[in-house]
């Protein structure tokens, strides 16, 4: 029987300010087994950090409960704190102190005696390979070194659980990989449970035993990465054709082919944002629009385009029409045992005289999984962080109140 180190039940965080109410985390429940690497994956502002802060007793939950190593986060915060280590998203080191002094202060705050302190600090510095930088001021550390020092610090008191909030954000790929190695090593060597948040697919994929996809404060999927991908059942074969007609014909041919779980046309890139603008707001002359029928346009204006929209020349109009009529020439087929079916699919195309321009076969990625569950790519979400924005706004208000 596996032992659960974290048990979360209906944990909820609501920010209120006057009549505005933002549910940062919506009554989530989950369990984490001892020794697991558990990852929260989601776009910025999804509620990952808020969840982590509640679990680490920095924020009070609005409702719901959670226990860590058997201790309740609301009733026994000090015992929870003793059993967890935390690496924050932003650096939380004192840059005016040396690496060793930072660790020393941490060890004292966690009640370690002098002898234990010395040996632990040496041990942890060795693990993160900072032994030769121990007496250097932290302000002279690189980003990766700071991260490693923070991980070492989070481990000094031998926590049962280590929380890592976006452990590799802002680091270069090489350093990122090194940090991943450190995390894996810790997990294996000490059997320490690791909870991390990330918005990098590769990171979740490379590190986590189980992944919890979180979006708008809600858990939308929670499973091992293999299982998550398996829900997309099969491999993904991406095909490209000469034109949409060929694609359409091929689609008809394979409609009843066994083992196919999904066929998805990949539409060409959307046009420039102006497309929706002028086309909806005005009818260019020559398309047979009746401007005086639209809304409250005064009769005097009839026959003329609205003042703020310059008449469109024929060329750009044609280009626009063409763009709109552009149809997909690529499609993804989700199919079981894809690699075995490829020759057969090519034969079908050849027999029907349909030319396939390119073909690639791939395993479904976490990105595909994310798209599957949320209907959009995680990259599209980046930079918006609406939740986060609202939260900060509300917090700022509360402080000034």
């Amino acid at each position, binding site marked *: 029987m596996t032992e659960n180190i974290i048990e979360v039940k209906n944990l909820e965080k609501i920010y209120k300010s006057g009549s505005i109410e933002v549910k940062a985390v919506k009554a989530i429940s989950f369990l984490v087994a001892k020794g697991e690497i558990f990852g929260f994956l989601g776009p910025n502002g999804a509620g990952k950090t808020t969840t982590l*802060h509640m679990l*680490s*007793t*920095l*924020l*009070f939950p609005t409702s719901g409960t959670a226990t860590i190593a058997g201790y309740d986060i609301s009733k026994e915060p*000090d*015992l929870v*704190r*003793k059993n*967890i280590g*935390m690496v*924050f998203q*932003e*650096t*939380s*080191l*004192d*840059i*005016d*102190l040396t690496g060793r*002094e930072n660790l*020393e*202060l*941490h060890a*004292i*705050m*966690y*009640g370690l005696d002098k002898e234990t302190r010395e040996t632990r600090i040496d041990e942890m510095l060795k693990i993160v390979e900072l032994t030769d930088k121990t007496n250097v001021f932290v302000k002279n550390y690189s980003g990766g070194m700071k991260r490693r020092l923070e991980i070492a*610090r989070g481990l000094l008191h031998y926590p049962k659980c280590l929380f890592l909030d976006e452990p590799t954000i802002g680091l270069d790929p090489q350093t990122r990989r090194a940090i991943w190695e450190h995390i894996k090593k810790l997990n294996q060597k000490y059997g320490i449970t690791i909870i991390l948040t990330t918005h990098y697919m590769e990171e979740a994929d490379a590190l986590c035993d189980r992944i919890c996809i979180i979006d708008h404060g809600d858990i939308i999927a929670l499973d091992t990465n293999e299982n998550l991908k398996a829900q997309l059942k099969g491999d993904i074969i991406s095909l490209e054709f000469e034109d949409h007609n060929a694609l359409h014909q091929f689609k008809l041919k394979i409609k009843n082919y066994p083992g196919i779980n999904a066929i998805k046309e990949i539409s060409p890139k959307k046009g420039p944002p102006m497309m929706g603008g002028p086309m909806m707001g005005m009818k260019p002359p020559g398309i047979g629009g009746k401007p005086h029928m639209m809304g409250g346009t005064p009769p005097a204006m009839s026959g003329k385009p609205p003042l703020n929209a310059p008449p469109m020349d024929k060329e750009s109009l044609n280009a626009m029409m063409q763009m709109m009529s552009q149809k997909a020439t690529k499609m993804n087929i989700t199919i079981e045992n894809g690699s075995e079916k490829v020759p057969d699919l090519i034969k079908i195309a050849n027999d029907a005289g349909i030319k396939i321009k390119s073909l690639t076969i791939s395993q479904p990625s976490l990105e595909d999984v994310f798209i599957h569950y949320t209907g959009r790519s995680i990259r599209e979400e980046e930079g918006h962080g609406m939740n986060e924005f609202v939260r900060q706004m509300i917090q700022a208000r509360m*402080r000034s109140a």
Partner: protein
Amino acid sequence: MKGLDISFSISKALAKREFLKYLRNKSRFITSLFQSLIFLFIFGAGLGSISLISAGMIPQAILFTGIFSGISIVQDRMFGFLKEIMIAPVSRTTITFGKAMGGTLVAAIQGFLLLALTSAFGFFGYDSMLFLRIVSAIPLIFLIGFMTVSLGNLISTRMQDFHQMQYLMTFLVMPMFFTSGAIINFVGTPFFKFTLINPMTYAVDAMRHIMLSGTPSASFGLPLYIDIIVLACFSFVFIIIAAYIFRKSESV
């Protein structure tokens, strides 16, 4: 007992951190000391009572350093280090106490430096009592340090970042400095009773009691022990409110 022991060693470690940071930031104490000396010589030369102003400037040096040590928690918040302290299994009272101890030590050193310099220059005369005076001024320096740090602590609970520093200087520190009686004597003016709400008034008065005892203009009339009690009360009120707000606040 063991818990209390650990709390104390944590406070000590936090205090040590403040002290180390102060020692490493040489520009801070040099600027502060220079500022005090500038004020001292300008007003001393202009008003012609260097001993009175020396005794008045020592509490001011402590005020400037103490307030800023007290709000170092704002700096910790800005640089993220506060989160590290907040997530440790340490009570907020211990944190407040530790930071106040460190700040007090730093402010006291600043005050003592000025005391040592002005004494060496002979502004308090070179009589046989000088050494005794200096020694008895030390506890007072610590008390003033603690009072100003506590006030800084209290302010820090309402301050999010250093952009508000300018307000702090303009609306609090400078008025406290100028109305304390350190350079301008308000005794006998209608304004005098307003200066009594300024804790620094008592700090200056107490310092003059100790350093200039026997001189007719040494005090505005309150006995030393009253000054001390008032200062202690101010400190106590400031630190208790600061600790209370700090305890009630969320950490991030």
